[in-house]
């Protein structure tokens, strides 16, 4: 498996960092290499926050994401900043409240009701990151749903297993529905 780069962004409280950590951890559990990092900045207080993941079956040397293969944005501010200058093959996943203000560079775009699903279907907006994980699972098919769930349960508080599992499932479904709608 050649190097894959991911960029996850949103606002401070949306848990995109945990999303990246779980993604990387899943990769490692699956015997791959992974590197997760994030952009810090005073703007993190309220502004856009971004997390990067690199996954590869080779050694990962260069530790930064330059040309992400998958870009997921959960907030408008994040999209304004990070959903630009993507490479043509990149897959862009956006919460459906977001309006793109600039050409993203790719046309592989998913508009999915991530926040709504988390809030209304799962009942907790903070599960948006886990919903996203389900989405990524279904889109990338890098790891099995089970592998993802195992990693998630390892990182989330006891007692939240059910809703987190549901969140993953919901994410998977969002992608399926999107594909259905498209096809």
């Amino acid at each position: 498996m050649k190097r894959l780069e991911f960029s996850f962004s949103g606002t401070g409280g949306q848990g995109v960092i945990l999303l990246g950590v779980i993604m990387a951890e899943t990769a490692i559990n699956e015997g791959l290499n992974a590197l997760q990092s994030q952009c810090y900045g005073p703007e993190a207080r309220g502004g856009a926050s971004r997390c990067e993941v690199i996954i590869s079956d080779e050694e990962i040397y260069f530790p930064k994401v330059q040309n992400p293969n998958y870009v997921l944005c959960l907030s408008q501010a994040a999209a304004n900043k990070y959903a630009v200058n993507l490479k043509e093959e990149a897959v862009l996943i956006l919460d459906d409240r977001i309006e793109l203000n600039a050409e993203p560079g790719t046309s592989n775009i998913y508009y999915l009701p991530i926040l709504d699903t988390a809030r209304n279907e799962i009942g907790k907006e903070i599960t948006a990151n886990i919903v996203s994980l389900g989405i990524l699972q279904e889109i990338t098919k890098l790891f099995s749903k089970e592998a993802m769930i195992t990693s998630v349960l390892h990182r989330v508080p006891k007692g939240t297993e059910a809703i987190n599992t549901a969140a993953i499932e919901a994410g998977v479904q969002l992608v399926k529905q999107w594909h259905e709608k498209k096809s």
Partner: protein
Amino acid sequence: MSDRSQLVDKYFRVDNLPHIWCPGCSHGIVTRALTKAIDELDLDPDKIVIVSGIGCSSRAAGYLNFNTLHTTHGRAIAYATGIKLANPELHVIVITGDGDASAIGGNHLIHACRRNIDLTVMIFNNNIYGMTGGQYSPTTPHTALGTTAPYGNIDRPFDLVRLVEGAGATYIARGTAYHTLQLTGYMKKAIAHKGLSVVEAISSCPTYYGRKNRIGDAVGMMQWMKDTFVEKRAYDRLDEEKRIGKVPFGEFVNIQAPEYTAVLAEITKRVEGRL
């Protein structure tokens, strides 16, 4: 028509807004209270210098439309001392956090108090290091949680009012972001005071303090201020028992003593031209 209030338009660098503070961070409230105090005193903005250190609170300097100096962590008061001495006609106001003022900057704080130099020190006390993500500060209550106090804070906190009193400050008040009007009042008196004045402005960091300590979010923290802080005279009238969990706010010290730059000016007058 701007979409800011007149006060904000007049004293803030509106181009730099919105500020970087988190939603509900009280630092914004306290900063506005300060501009209100300055407005009511009708001071010449060109003669106002704001000196801050490093911290979320210290970022206030960049938003205020005066001569503003954002220095190094803990050293604002020392920089301010140089400015005031170099040009005593300036109103020099220090904006600093609990960490900036009383942890790394503690020495400069007590020495400014000792000298009674005419600076106004506004301590935005949110009981935590906000900027670096929630480590306990010298004002974090005993047993409270912080990222470096995972098992509860071992330290006893400073009572900043007592500290600066022991060090010799001549005007001391404590206000809160909830009791905004009173806070503005103390700030006015502090700025007008000749000598070293300290206003401890109880602020809040919902992001790193409130949630972790189950006080709640922005609203919860304001509610906590409302519930916890009692005006000094009222507090003094409470019985011992009812005082538990309450903290007084108000004016604690307001005395006159020779002010540093004034004493210095006299000596300079005496010896000038002597050599």
